[in-house]
């Protein structure tokens, strides 16, 4: 598992790679939190393009960041969800609270528009 973070203007983009489970989620969470806090960002895009496996630990990660950004009146979007991820996200109600886009570009545009 690894995390790639980059910044597009005011938006933090997090690209997740590999397996997202309970073992890997802690270090991912702290990396994302650190990047958000250090940069003072209020907008986050999470890309799942390179995720090989994800269980409900990933749901916790997504909803945890969603709460944080909501408290800060920030914006957040997800992108590049493959079909097997989609099932888990739908089941957990993530689609009801967060916008999901096919591409990172569209997610970025949305989030910038909301800010």
């Amino acid at each position, binding site marked *: 598992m690894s995390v790639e973070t980059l910044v597009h203007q005011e938006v933090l983009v997090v690209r997740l790679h590999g397996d997202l489970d*309970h073992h890997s989620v802690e270090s991912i969470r702290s990396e994302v939190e650190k990047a958000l806090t250090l940069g003072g960002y209020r907008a986050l895009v999470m890309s799942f393009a390179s995720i090989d496996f994800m*269980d*409900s630990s990933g749901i916790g990660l997504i909803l945890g960041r969603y709460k944080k950004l909501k408290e800060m009146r920030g914006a957040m979007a997800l992108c590049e969800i493959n079909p097997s991820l989609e099932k888990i996200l739908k089941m957990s109600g993530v689609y009801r609270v967060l916008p999901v886009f096919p591409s990172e570009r569209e997610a970025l545009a949305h989030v910038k528009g909301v800010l």
Partner: protein
Amino acid sequence: MSSRVSPSVAVENYIRLQFPSKSENESFARVAVASFVAQLDPTLEELTEIKTAVSEAVTNAIIHGYENSFGEVRIECSILDHTVKITIEDDGAGIEDISVARQPLYTSRPDLERSGMGMTIMETFMDLMELESSPGCGTRVTLVKTVGDDPSQQPS
């Protein structure tokens, strides 16, 4: 919480796994089960569903059962025709109220950012999910799924 597949039961093949409650072993557990189940020639989707369900059960044993202290997780996986049966058990804290634990979004550990979706995912991805637990003694999850193109085979 201990069980054995006796050779007299009509099981075609089985494996038993045992490992300490370390989060590093979550990926080992799901990969090992998946590579065993591969002999049934499941679809990629079925295999992902089984891996996810196993990952949920093993994670629960580690964080809820043993609360991150040392303990052993045991997995037994058997196949008969096109049906795979997996039990994941721990000798940990156990569950006070199973019907509460099974509710979607219920988690006793929101502090760990758990989503409370583990049980729901297991139920949805498998044909059958059974929970046995005694507080203070441990928990056993049984997961059953029929894979491949033989729908006449029902979980026993």
